């Protein structure tokens, strides 16, 4: 099948998946006990609560609520967040960039550091540098991200005071990022949270890439390249790497959504105003519409990431170009 056909099929499937996710979340949210106004700390007059419920259409049958929601979505209307007292769409537009900045920076660190380490380790396989790095990556990979965040915060934020302890930017001088100084300030604030996510990710990437490089190293065509007299550097960086990267590309495409889940904790600890924190608080306050909207965005990212991963692999691996793309392998339980 052609690329266009494949793409079309995947897009249709992706939309179907997203709709299924919305439905599932919708049902879950409405099944749970507790009404919006009986959330965390507010004590609300039942009459007010009833009025709000009617306003939000929560007393209608679920099926009807669902239909109305889908229709509104089709018009780009995500609804009104009662806990934030503003349209959901505005809240999302405000927070998504922050999450993307965090995830983007973390991804960059993850793959740059991770791939380099993995390649280096494979070159020195089973010798001392590899053994040391191997154990180190194993350790970092096993750290709970929130714990690492606390430790980094303690060390670099408090004790050494090299980095700020939270927030996205200097509240006084840079409420908006409108100058070089403010960009630098944003990066400075981004450092600790992105490093936390990125380090743990890099450890995983390094382990994975090392294994991939070694698997390729034992292949016959590497021996052929050497037999041709290709210099060792070129053998590794051109022949080995091109093949070993194929599996890492899939990981790359799927990394973004995984970062999202990690972001919830990091955003909470570092007071980073991203979508993860927004979703968490929305859940606690039973803000249905906000919850559903964030789930929608999250699942869209997952599906898009998977699509992008498959596209990239299809481009990079000539064996896949003429056939329909395979499904990527996901290596988690």
């Amino acid at each position, binding site marked *: 099948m052609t690329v266009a056909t494949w793409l079309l099929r995947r897009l249709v499937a992706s939309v179907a998946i997203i709709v299924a996710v919305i439905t599932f979340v919708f049902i879950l949210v409405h099944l749970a006990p507790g009404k919006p106004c009986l959330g965390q700390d507010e004590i609300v007059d039942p009459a007010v609560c009833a009025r709000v419920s009617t306003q939000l259409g929560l007393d209608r049958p679920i099926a009807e609520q669902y239909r109305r929601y889908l229709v509104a979505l089709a018009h780009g209307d995500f609804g009104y967040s009662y806990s934030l007292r503003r349209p959901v769409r505005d809240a999302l537009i405000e927070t998504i960039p922050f999450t993307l900045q965090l995830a983007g920076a973390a991804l960059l660190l993850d793959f740059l550091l991770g791939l380099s380490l993995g390649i280096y380790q494979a070159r020195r396989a089973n010798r001392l540098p590899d053994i040391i790095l191997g154990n180190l990556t194993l350790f970092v990979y096993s750290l709970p991200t929130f714990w690492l965040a606390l430790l980094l915060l303690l060390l670099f934020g408090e004790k050494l005071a090299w980095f700020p302890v939270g927030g996205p930017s200097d509240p006084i001088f840079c409420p908006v990022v409108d100058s070089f100084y403010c960009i630098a300030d944003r990066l400075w604030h981004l450092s600790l949270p992105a490093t936390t996510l990125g380090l743990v990710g890099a450890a995983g990437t390094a382990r994975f890439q090392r294994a991939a490089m070694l698997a390729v190293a034992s292949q016959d*065509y590497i021996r052929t390249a050497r037999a041709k*007299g290709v210099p060792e550097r070129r053998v590794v960086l051109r022949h080995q790497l091109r093949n070993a990267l194929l599996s890492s590309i899939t990981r790359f495409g799927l990394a973004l959504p995984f970062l999202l889940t990690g972001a919830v904790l990091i955003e909470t600890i570092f007071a980073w105003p991203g979508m993860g924190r927004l979703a968490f608080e929305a859940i606690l306050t039973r803000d249905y519409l906000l919850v559903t909207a964030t789930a929608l965005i999250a699942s869209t990212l997952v599906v898009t990431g998977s699509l992008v991963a498959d596209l990239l692999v299809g481009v990079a691996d000539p064996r896949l170009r003429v056939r329909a793309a395979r499904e990527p392998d996901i290596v988690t339980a």
Partner: protein
Amino acid sequence: MTTPPAPNGAVLLRVRDLKTYFVTEQGKGTARAVDDVSFDLYAGETLGIVGESGCGKTVTSLSILRLIPEPPGHILPGSLIEFDGNNLLALPLPQLRAVRGNQIAMIFQEPMTSLNPVFTVGDQIAEAAIIHQHLSRGAARARAIEMLRLVGIPDPDERVDHYPHQLSGGMRQRVMIAMALVCHPKVLIADEPTTALDVTIQAQILELLDRLQRELGMAVLLITHDLGVVAGHADRVVVMYAGRVVETAPTDALFARPMHPYTEGLLAAVPRIDAPRSRLHAIPGQVPAATAWPTGCRFHPRCPYAWEKCAAQEPPLLETGVAGHTARCWLVTEPERRQAKR
């Protein structure tokens, strides 16, 4: 089929006392895969190296270009591989790489896994030209097309941009050959080039190799377990068993009068279409493990003629009286023992 060459051509490659050992895990001992192998390769000839799996022929061929993975394998000092006045085993790596693919080239058994799946065949052929002859990319690509034509691939201008998985097994092997010959090497090492191919394709590939050898004037080291291949395409034959050379002879002499019982056994095991049907003859026993070669003559446990001397003392390569025909067997000095079959 081929006339035995008078070795009047120069010696291109001289292998002396080659020993390649492998360390096995769990201390099962050292596998002495190649244990003191010596032979000469003359210009313009095809030398066949024949033997069962496990006899060390592939390891020998890999050792020539030092393609043995260093742990767990290592080539022992004292081994000599002389080419063009240099000991290849002592050559510093950059110079060795100048020899690889350039003066001595190698093709392998499995063409599918031996070609890089993510590069076009044109790229892979051109790479050797770019590295050794410093051609520009355009010139190298033109060379690649030329080579593809030389090895008999139809529509080379199109095929040059194809990937290995788009080609059939026979074509892939032709690509391998093109890749190896693009720099006009003096020596081509062919490690079981046809084993993974269909019989009809086998014949084509071997004919191709013959033709190219004549046209390019190179020497070919043909490694195979198939006696039929050797009979049809080799000028001289080296028979290996248990890491050693057990017989060397011009092809006709070997087939007419094999001196070593192992060679006898190999020939007898080939089923013949023109002989009366009888039970297939097999050499009794199995090839011993490379970590524990038998004492004395390594073949003696399986030999129909063996006597006490064979178990006690390993014979050296003895001249048989026929030019260029040597055998590692006491029967050469005591031919009367040949009558008494066990």
